[in-house]
């Protein structure tokens, strides 16, 4: 049985075929407006390139930036009734208070604040005002709104009021799509609420997109189930994406980092994904991207998604090289994907970072003779500066003093030197389609992040155990094989300024996907 990984980016749709741990083929196709035809094209190309029998494809894993782009480009967003349970808390900061005006208007600016919610230790903040929920339901019917989000204060500690609110809404408005914040995000009300609202506004697009993927597979005659990768590099079933599209928001960089880990067999490393305009840099820990600890902006909206701690520098294959040997400037301007027409080595008129890599002999692409008239001092100065830029970002991404290797992936990775400071640079085979490889190998996860009150016999250890059990149950429900599940993140943070009875616990587990685990048994 084979696994197919597809990465649907803004410009390219990449696909790979894997047999066990071996990459049989990798291709790049163009992304299309309707999604279906691009995915179909990529599938056909990669099946042809690998020469496999399509009936023997066991699973298709898709990574997509479609939903992120919808938010950034303000397209395909539906109106949402954004209901918050927490009055009197937060009365002065209504839902979407910190959103840019254009996107707030697009989702309708229907914010509602209702009495409800909990305190940090599980006490009731205010009893839920059920009458008010029914009144709001009436308004939702009148306005014809089809999606709602429900966010309760400290719903991570107790989700009963969010659940009850959904029950009432569905009684009053059958068919309404209701998103609960406890399913979406973590501690931090405004950011979690914003994520829940965005999720609700993307539900219809999610439905259409998942259908488009399904159609592409059908057209290509691939009968295998398909999965979609989420921010942390693990998989969701297609139906889960229909319910939680926001969980795909940062899957792009995650997939390329996971792909880098897989292609090299390394679990602790720095990954540099060099594209045409920028390089994304992040750290692998236990084979997974390290997660960001601060809030992440999506299209101007603060969220607290589980995002990889990846940052970008303005250096890629198409970066412009300007100035003199004394004051050379590289990027952030770039010719981007047009590098194959505009760089000097490709017969163009623009001096790019790729030309410098060829001039120094690091890369053998295009026509090196086109560089004959370049000032050697400028080449040396530019090469030195590129190395310094990579060194600075790798140093920033490093998470321990231990020397770890640096993995270079992406189309522009010829720019990377072989050594960065005291660290060795590794360029795996198939580096250009690492993102599709990352999708192909994704696993299934479960996660708990909430505040536990250490009273009434609850100890730190018992709370940690409870959190782990919750995360495991989540992973199994999502399709993981229980025996393969391992804990990859476990941390507890006692809350400052409070006596030692409250602690925030975060546990994350991953396991192999059921279908694949069975497949391996079948192969054996």
């Amino acid at each position, binding site marked *: 049985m084979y696994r197919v990984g597809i990465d649907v980016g803004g410009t390219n749709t990449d696909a790979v075929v894997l047999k066990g741990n071996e990459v049989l083929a990798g291709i790049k196709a163009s992304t299309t407006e309707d999604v279906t035809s691009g995915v179909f094209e990529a599938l056909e190309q990669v099946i042809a390139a690998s020469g496999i029998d399509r009936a023997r494809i066991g699973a298709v894993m898709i990574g997509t930036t479609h939903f992120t782009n919808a938010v950034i480009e303000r397209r395909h967003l539906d109106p949402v009734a954004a209901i918050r349970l927490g009055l009197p808390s937060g009365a002065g900061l209504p839902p979407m208070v910190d959103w840019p005006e254009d996107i707030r208007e697009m989702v309708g600016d229907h914010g509602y604040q209702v009495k409800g919610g909990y305190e940090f230790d599980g006490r009731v903040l205010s009893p839920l005002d059920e009458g008010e929920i029914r009144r709001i339901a009436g308004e939702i019917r009148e306005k014809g709104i089809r999606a709602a989000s429900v966010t309760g204060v400290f719903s991570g500690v107790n989700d009963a009021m969010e659940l009850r609110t959904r029950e009432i809404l569905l009684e009053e408005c059958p068919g309404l799509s209701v998103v609960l914040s406890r399913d979406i995000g973590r501690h*931090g009300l405004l950011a979690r609420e914003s994520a829940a609202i965005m999720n609700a506004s993307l539900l219809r697009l999610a439905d259409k997109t998942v259908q488009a993927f399904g159609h592409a597979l059908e057209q290509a005659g691939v009968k295998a189930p398909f999965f979609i990768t989420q921010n942390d590099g693990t998989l969701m079933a297609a139906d889960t994406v229909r319910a939680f599209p926001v969980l795909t928001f940062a899957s792009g960089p995650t997939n390329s980092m996971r792909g880098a880990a897989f292609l090299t067999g390394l679990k602790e490393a720095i990954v540099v994904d060099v594209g045409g305009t920028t390089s994304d840099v992040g750290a692998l820990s236990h084979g997974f991207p390290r997660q960001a600890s601060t809030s992440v902006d999506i299209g101007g909206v603060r969220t607290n998604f589980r995002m990889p701690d990846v940052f970008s520098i303005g250096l890629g294959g198409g970066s412009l090289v300007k100035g003199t040997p004394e004051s050379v400037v590289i990027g952030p301007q770039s010719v981007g994907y047009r590098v194959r027409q505009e760089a000097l080595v490709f017969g163009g008129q623009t001096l790019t970072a790729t030309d410098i890599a060829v001039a120094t002999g690091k890369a053998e692409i295009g026509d090196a003779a086109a560089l004959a008239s370049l000032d050697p001092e400028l080449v040396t100065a530019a090469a030195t500066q590129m190395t310094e830029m990579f060194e600075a970002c790798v140093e920033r991404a490093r998470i321990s003093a231990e020397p770890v290797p640096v993995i270079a992936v992406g189309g522009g990775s010829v720019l990377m030197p072989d050594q960065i400071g005291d660290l060795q640079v590794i360029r795996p085979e198939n580096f250009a389609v690492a993102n599709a490889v990352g999708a192909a190998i994704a696993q299934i996860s479960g996660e708990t992040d909430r505040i536990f009150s250490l009273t009434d016999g609850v100890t730190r250890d018992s709370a940690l155990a409870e959190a782990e059990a919750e995360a495991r149950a989540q992973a199994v429900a999502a399709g993981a094989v229980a025996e393969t599940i391992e804990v990859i993140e476990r941390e507890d943070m006692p809350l400052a300024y409070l006596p030692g009875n409250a602690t925030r616990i975060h546990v994350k587990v991953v396991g192999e996907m059921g279908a694949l685990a069975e497949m391996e048994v079948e192969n054996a």
Partner: protein
Amino acid sequence: MPDTRELTYDPADLWELTLDDLEALEVGAGILGTGGGGNPYQGKLLTREAMKAGHKMTILATDKIADDALCMSIGGIGAPVVGTERIREGREGLRCLQGMEELTGRKMDAIVCEEIGGANSMNPLVAAALGGLPVLDCDGMGRAFPEMQMTTFSIYGHSSTPSVMCDLHGNRVVFQHAVSEVFHERMARACVVAQGGAAMLATAPMPASFVRQNAIPMSYTKAIRLGRAVLDARRNGDDPVATVCALEGGRHVFTGKITDLKRHLRGGFAVGDLELGGFDGFQGQTASIAIQNEFLIFRREGEVEVTVPDLIIVLDVDTGYPITTEMLRYGQRIAVLAVPCHDLLRSARALEVVGPAAFGYPEIPFTPLAPMGQAA
């Protein structure tokens, strides 16, 4: 009660804040938080909403108000991490003001900021605007400190009780009398847990003459100027670290990468140690910073160089944005700035409360960054 007071200042002297000023204040107050003080983001949003609703945020210089005008200091108390989930209602500060006026039977004339560093920079603005009062251009710390008795008001003899503490539910607690400032802090902390972990507290009113003499002056002017300079530097591609040093009369003491980070909790406070390896002009050097909610002690090669109450400010090397102690992580590239604290924090009396010994370092004497009288 009927409003029979006469205006104790000339309205022409009021400085009305703009939305732009608020954005700058968020950045400036974050820098002056010296690693602690909580994030001013939500406070900024609340202030902004109040402004959009038509409330005026006004600042008044301390020398533009009558000597006997009554000034009430106000600040948030509790766990910042609770506040990010259970957001304030918005009128807690206003209820403190009303509570204090009922308790004392007197009208307040102005609001005073307890702590300009971090989230408490915004709290007085909301309360004052809703109550129709100005905020005086000063504060009780000139930075951030973890406890209430660490204001210059308390240090120089003001008894902070009777105080009024209001939560988002509408509960109002009055601390009629505390035998010491530390006792007041201890009781308020115990009470805030019952209130759900966060509340607003107003301390006993002070005459303007006392504030003028004992507050850190021009706090809002300076914080806004600082924030604006950093935002401008970022926009223009200038070095934000140099910008902050120049404005605050500070010294850029180190640039380095975090090579080790140890944290634990002691008595409800986040305590830790940060190790740094130098680069740029500090290549080959090592340094460390001791943390207790804020940055307390800076050492180079094991030798103490800067200590609390002087300000140890940690900025992201590239953006110039302040890094708080909870944002620290291995590998971050940071610039460390030392800024002399105000003279009011350097007297023997002040050092008993906010010097190294008060934070558990009795063996470290306070070595001032600049001689008295020359501080920013």
